[in-house]
């Protein structure tokens, strides 16, 4: 083994090394997805379904036609933002379980800017001002909602895991109140808790005529690139990653740890707020109660599956979007409830988090480096 490596040229060696690294980075997540699908198939079979037809339907529903592809991209847009939000917090050593609440709050704010400016205040804005305004305020609302647990963490030590969850329930209660009360769609035919439709000038247009895929998807990809740039090419990004890796070392290096924690949470919340904003301005054109439920946990799974790297997050978001989108056709074909997707996603997360299991099953050698994601209550 050693001899053959000695004989190869340095170029081939570096190519081989690159391939091995890529395989190692992609290998565990891919095998985790595969294993989760296998176990999911067993669950489907146990529940009395045909796993092969189910997965065929899933694939067709996700990629089978231009319309299916468009819908997958539609699903992927908020997933990319929300996944980036959780991944960004992880980089700063924080676990943001509150993407759901931040997303809901961003959506409410975007909807408010979208319909109330022309509706209540009679300010008619051109689209090139109205759209950025709605997006900006939605993102800010998300940032604010996340900065609160961030500040509590930095200045009082209240753990962000519990606080962000509490903020989720508070957001749910507050949006229920708003959507049932002051912001409720006054249309007499309306029976559900939702806002009125936002003005035409606040709507993000579709990418292609006749398909639902919109510019929000492009924006999501751009923001993913921006997050990568921020984390690895700027001083702030370096500070955030240093605080995430070792807060004590960061403190001795002269980094303002408390400020960085608040800022990390705020940016994380901003990204989550964008997820909700995009859904309102580009897709639903209103906020409806209950649409945000479940996004928070999906976002965690996406961030972990993508190994908290922006590119990984985009790929993981596309996979999750394909599953959610394909599930409808799967249910139509095989009567397997769409909820099976949640089971498969939980299994993916299980195998990604416990990569030791995957390494054990497939006999992959472990690397020494361990990414510290969260710390106990003491930290």
């Amino acid at each position, binding site marked *: 083994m050693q001899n053959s490596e000695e004989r190869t040229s340095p170029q081939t060696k570096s190519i081989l090394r690159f391939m091995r690294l890529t395989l190692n980075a992609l290998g565990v997540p891919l095998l985790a997805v595969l294993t989760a699908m296998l176990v999911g198939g067993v*669950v489907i079979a146990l*529940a*009395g379904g045909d796993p092969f037809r189910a997965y065929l339907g899933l694939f067709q529903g996700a990629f089978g036609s231009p319309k299916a592809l468009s819908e997958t991209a539609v699903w992927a847009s908020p997933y990319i933002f929300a996944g980036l939000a959780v991944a960004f917090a992880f980089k700063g050593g924080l*676990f943001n*379980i509150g993407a759901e609440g931040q997303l809901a709050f961003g959506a409410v704010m975007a909807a408010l800017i979208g319909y109330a400016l022309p509706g209540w205040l009679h300010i008619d804005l051109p689209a090139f001002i109205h759209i950025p305004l709605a997006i900006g305020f939605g993102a800010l609302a998300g940032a604010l909602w996340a900065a609160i647990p961030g500040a*509590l963490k930095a200045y*009082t*030590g*209240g*753990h962000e*895991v*519990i*606080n962000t*969850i*509490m*903020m*989720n*329930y*508070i957001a749910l*209660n*507050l949006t*229920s*109140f708003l959507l*049932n*009360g002051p912001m409720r769609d006054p249309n007499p035919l309306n029976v559900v808790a939702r806002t009125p439709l936002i003005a035409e000038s606040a709507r993000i247009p579709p990418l292609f005529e006749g398909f639902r895929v919109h510019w929000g998807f492009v924006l999501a990809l751009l923001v993913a690139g921006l997050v990568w740039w921020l984390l690895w090419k700027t001083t702030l990004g370096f500070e955030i990653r240093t605080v995430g890796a070792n807060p004590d070392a960061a403190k001795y290096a002269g980094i303002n740890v408390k400020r960085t924690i608040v800022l990390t949470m705020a940016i994380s919340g901003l990204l989550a707020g964008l997820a909700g904003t995009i859904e309102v301005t580009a897709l639903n054109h209103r906020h409806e109660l209950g649409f945000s*439920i*479940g996004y928070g*946990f999906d976002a*965690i*799974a996406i961030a*972990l599956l993508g190994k908290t790297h922006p590119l990984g997050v985009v790929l993981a978001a596309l996979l999750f979007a394909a599953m959610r989108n394909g599930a409808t056709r799967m249910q139509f074909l095989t*009567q*397997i*409830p769409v*909820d*099976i*997707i*949640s*089971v*498969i*996603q*939980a*299994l993916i*997360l*299980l195998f990604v*988090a*416990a990569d*030791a*299991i995957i390494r054990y099953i497939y006999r992959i050698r472990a690397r020494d480096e361990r990414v*510290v*994601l*969260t*710390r*106990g*209550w*003491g930290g």
Partner: protein
Amino acid sequence: MDWRRFGFIALIISVLFGVVVLIGHVQISPVIIITSMLSTTIAVATPLTLGALCGLYCERAGVVNIGIEGMMLAAAFFGWLASIYMNTVFGMAPMPSLIGGVAFAILTGGLLGLLHSVLSVTFKVDQIIGGTVINILAIGITGFLNRQLFFEKGSIFGGNVPHAPGVLPRIQIPYLADMPVVGRIFDQQPITWAAILLVLITHYVLFYTRWGLRTRAVGEHPRAADTVGINVIRMRYANVILGGMLAGLGGAYFTLESVPSFEPLMTNGRGFISLAAMIFGNWTPFGAWSAALVFGAAQALQINLQFFRELIPPQWAFLQISYVVGLAPYLLTMIILTGIIGKNIPPAADGQPYEK
């Protein structure tokens, strides 16, 4: 637990009770209102108490468990499912099916505890991620099975939920329950009684038995414990599984004691609130129980205000909105976690996997 904490708890509970008394006293005598509030508080605090005890066993042994929510949800579903199966499919009488359901709920909790310990003790997965996995898994599997078994046409129960065997009967404490007004407090359902008993038992076990000493040693300084011959891995496994079983009993409260039905996501954050109760109780059983009672009181306020809706004076109109009153437990949790009511000190090795 120090006097400041108990003082704060007493203060908050009196404020919460006071609000209802202030509003309702024109119609009903304050004694009856307080009795009714107290009775509700003790009952609704049950899953929180059991969840907090689950967290206590896990964290005293050095394993952070944020999967309590998922453990409760899964136990609520499988316990309920088991009771329906026994009652409808096997034709058992309601009472044995309910007891069987509780047993299944405890078993479900124990199995998830086993999963958590495999992940966090053996595979040394980040314990907070491990708990999140359990939460997501529980939401997915209960949602899937709930729809697959009950709401699909080709399913076992033919697309409709069969009649559940009801809820566990009340148990009265002799003599105490016969008292004129306050007797109500001593007339509770079995899991509620069990939770209170388990608080006493846990206090005894943790601080007066060899098992408790070893558990605490493993949570404070596993290496020292290992040197004197305590099996760290085994102690952690045992305590996390035991904790899971307690969370399972807490889950049974939702579908077998409180209401005879299951809804997706019905635990509604109680698992997380019970963690906060455990932290506020500074990792002691009595502290955790009293903190659980505070959250119970906040919930009792919400329930009891429903009876007095039309009596609420106009300047307090915001109390009519259940969404606003419903915020109380969550806000309370966040305030408590800031540590302004006393510093919360976790076991020293909490959350750290043990490497030999």
